[in-house]
């Protein structure tokens, strides 16, 4: 599994810049567990293999939950970062997801 965690925007400013490179966006700001993971899961269902989803959250639990979602569903967690109480994740569906 080709997992690559990008910690900072600055470090990813090269060829594989992570900013906004996603096929779908999901705004989960203001939602609490389990809704960010539930909505992300439904959004992932609609992706084709190889496509990526970008999720924006404000539930601090999402920092633990999204890596777990990726592991359980066999997704690649391309990036996970937090800034000013906002968490941003990018997940890529590689296989059936």
């Amino acid at each position, binding site marked *: 599994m080709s997992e690559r965690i990008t910690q900072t925007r600055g470090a990813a400013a090269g060829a594989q810049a992570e900013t906004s490179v996603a096929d779908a966006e999901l705004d989960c700001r203001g939602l*609490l567990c389990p809704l960010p*993971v539930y909505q*992300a*899961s439904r959004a992932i*269902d609609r992706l084709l293999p190889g496509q990526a989803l970008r999720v924006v959250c404000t539930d601090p639990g999402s920092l633990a939950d999204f890596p777990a979602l990726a592991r*359980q*569903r*066999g997704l690649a967690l391309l990036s996970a970062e937090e800034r000013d109480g906002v968490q941003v994740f990018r997940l890529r569906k590689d296989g*059936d997801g």
Partner: protein
Amino acid sequence: MSALAALGAVPARADGRARRLAMVASKGTLDGAYPALILAATAVSLGWEVGIFFTFYGLDIIHRKKHRKLKVPSLGNPAMPVPLPSLVGVLPGMTAVATWMMKRWMKRSRMLDVGQFLDIAREGGVRLFACSTTMGVMGVRAEDLVEGVDIAGATAFLDFAADADVSLFV
């Protein structure tokens, strides 16, 4: 809502089968229903199979009318939403106050209600086992329950739970 049943199975287990969560929901209170339903919605999101055995007062969670009227008990609940001495919990109306506060918190947090979580469970293929013994003891009829439940005894639930990766009593 779109069909979560379309979720691909997770080949996370060595045998290739999806992971399975088996839960017993035994409490007919709002604060008893939420943990079970939230865990079910989460497991569905992960692509797991889920089954919940609703037994004794937990049967109210899948009761057509009662699931909308679940309450937060004020008595014997030191952590109830109203910060008052436990003894005050016996006063008439305190359960209604505690329930109202919990529902207000949930709404303010944009949390779903019990009926919406039941919808997610059914769309996600969660098996809702209605305990037939409870139904017999308490005089609950099949038509009193929400759509899509399986009336079953403990044997059928244990048969499902025997292959579970996670088993919880709520």
